[in-house]
């Protein structure tokens, strides 16, 4: 019975992926991509990875979907969608060749899997008690491989930084009018507190159950974006510095904690024994807020009209 569900899911996945790739209208492609995200979170449940299912649903399908839809909306609103030139035969041939060789190689590789020499999950289980959290994934993310997470937050901050640099300083305030819909505002007064509550719950649950900073942060971002779309402007213009501080806070706190232990003589990113759990929670709190703000500003930054084409640069026209 289970296997049947897996095959069904697989078929659904394939069908949705192919339609999202090959459909004529770009809007349909984006909608099916979001559908694919939801299907994927089901697949992650089947793969016994609830954390990833949550993350995929909120970040993969949610945030990416909103960004794509928003970009599509802007493309359709401001410019006529030029009919797409049909790609040339050579491109088709090359694409087919590349993808078929890739699939063939991967299948050949997957079928001859050797017995892995090291069982990392065993080592994680053994080291879990000293990691300060009970949930293995949060332990790996914020303790064993915390350096990866630090760099990953850096990537997020960098993405929003590039967006900000391309945004012209004197951009007119947000051009997208909010939806002045009374029912929406009423529902929001109900929904937003629930979303904030679930975000807090996810953050807190991260210690011993699937959850954690990323999913909570993405939930927070969803709430902020809802507010943004409904017209209540969190206009970053007024509190330029506060907004930027918010973006960088998560990364800054994480780095500060890591450096403080370094100054205390212990290797980089080691939590003083006993206080690992509390420190991880502090970092996760800061990360959640920051990720919420970052994902929001990734959304808003794309809105404001871009910097006017650069005046003749110093060295060339």
């Amino acid at each position: 019975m289970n296997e049947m569900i897996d095959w069904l899911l697989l078929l659904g996945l394939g069908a949705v992926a192919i339609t999202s790739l090959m459909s004529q209208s770009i809007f349909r492609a984006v909608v099916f991509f979001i559908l694919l995200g939801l299907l994927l979170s089901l697949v992650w449940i089947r793969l016994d990875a609830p954390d990833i299912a949550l993350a995929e649903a909120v970040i993969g399908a949610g945030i990416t979907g909103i960004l794509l839809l928003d970009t599509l909306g802007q493309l359709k609103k401001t410019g006529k969608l030029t009919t797409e030139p049909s790609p040339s035969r050579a491109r088709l041939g090359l694409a087919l060749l590349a993808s078929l060789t890739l699939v063939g190689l991967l299948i050949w590789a997957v079928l001859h899997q050797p017995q892995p020499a090291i069982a990392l999950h065993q080592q994680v289980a053994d080291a879990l008690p000293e990691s300060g959290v009970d949930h293995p994934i949060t332990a790996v993310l914020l303790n064993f491989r915390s350096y990866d997470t630090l760099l990953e937050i850096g990537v997020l901050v960098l993405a929003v930084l590039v967006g900000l640099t391309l945004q012209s300083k004197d951009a007119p305030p947000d051009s997208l009018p909010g939806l002045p819909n009374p029912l929406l505002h009423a529902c929001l007064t109900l929904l937003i507190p629930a979303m904030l509550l679930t975000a807090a719950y996810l953050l807190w649950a991260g210690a011993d159950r699937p959850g954690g900073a990323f999913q909570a942060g993405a939930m927070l971002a969803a709430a902020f974006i809802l507010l943004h779309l409904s017209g209540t402007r969190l206009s970053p213009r007024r509190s330029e510095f506060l907004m930027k501080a918010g973006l960088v806070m998560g990364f800054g706190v994480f780095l500060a904690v890591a450096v403080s232990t370094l100054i205390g003589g212990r290797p980089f990113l080691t939590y003083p024994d006993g206080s690992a759990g509390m420190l991880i929670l502090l970092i996760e709190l800061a990360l959640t807020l920051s990720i919420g703000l970052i994902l929001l500003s990734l959304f808003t930054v794309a809105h404001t009209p871009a910097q006017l084409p650069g005046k003749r640069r110093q060295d060339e026209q």
Partner: protein
Amino acid sequence: MSLMQSPMPWLLVIPLAGATLTMLLPDRWRSAASALGILSQLVAALLLSYQVIQSGPQIYAMGNWQAPLGIALRADGLAMLFILMSALVSSLCALYAQSYLKAEKRANFWPLFWFLWASLNGIWLAADTFNLYVGLELLTLAAVGLVAFAADERSLEASIRYLYAALLGSMGYLLGVALLYGAHGTLALDSLAEHWHWGPTSQVAVTLIVGGLLLKTAVFPLHTWLPPAHGGALTPVSALLSALVIKASFYMLLRFWIELDIYRHLPSLSQLLGILGAGAIFWGGWMALRQQHLKWVVAYSTVAQIGYMLLMFPLLTAGQSDASQLAYQGGILMLLAHALAKAGMFLAAGNLMICTGKPDLQALAGMSRYRPLTIFAFGLAGVSLMGLPPSGGFSAKWLLLQSSLLSGQWWWVVVLVLGSLLSAAYIFRVFAYTYRETGEEGDRFARPALSMELTALTLSVASILLGFAAMLPLQLISLPGPLMEALP
């Protein structure tokens, strides 16, 4: 004093802290903060290299968790050379950018610059495959941000093309890492090398990793994204990109290639890399000959010079150990000489374009009469790129020549010889323009700031002096370490 018992994490903390600070500080304090950051970075790099020379390679377990579970940083001779190289080139490019960029542009430049430097140091020191992936992504986004930073149409198109190519490359790399993890159960390079099992899974994983990294190093058939990106970006950015950013994926390729004994198992792949290298030399040189835009000539010369570095791979034959040592030393010296010379040449080219105000070559007529210093910097860098003595490029070419003769693969000698003639052709072509006398009297050229001219000159002179002081880097990279044990 415990704080400094190992400066390795500081090499990462300083740039990351610099990035956050320069994002928050008001514009006018950012340059001062960055200057302080650069100084402390240089001190930390020198301290670590002193420790590595004294007491051999250092392993630093992050968060006190040992390798397979946690992430370890590793500083052997090769990593130290790359750290010192990026410290030198980045600080000089920062100095150049200080006077090159206008006020508000400069404010935005610093955070991106620091993220770039942090990711570079992260890659040089990394010993964990997934950690390399995240470092590579950080590097790509920073580099794309810097290219798009010029915010005009040409650099925007270049940054999109660069981002798409880079994303595909790093996704191919991640796929390889996924297969390796499935097959060996570990992410750390050392334990991978220890339990290395050469089955079909590992072969496919290796091909994917090599393919992804070749795309990110802009090797010949996959190089189309590089010329617009390096040619279109602002001068200090294209110097950083050409000198350091493409070297990061090449460094990773080298690490995998030697530490996982790929040259022993796949000699055919190494010959393929050699052929790609030869193709890059000839194609890059030929395209450089036909460019009218000065920076595009230098960008295509990067494509050609990568070809030289790739010649190292076929020469790392399992049989002769002295030929492989020579190839290894020659390749790394070529990489170092190229980094210095290419950064110097890009900065000098930027100065030339400021003087003439126009990017095309015809405008250079009569330059050597009024701006000898700038032409001299461009010339010295050109000498090193051409591989004419007494430059670093020449010593590297010499080592590669010796290695190919010793290992009996004489055809690489022909490639090296024709390649250096081709590079001489396109560099002297630019020179010929500067000597042309157009008869207009009077000095109608603008004058770039002295600091900009001096930084370009320092880098070019450094690449020439490398020819004389080649022993220092060569001793540094031959220090004992995981890489040296894996060499035949």
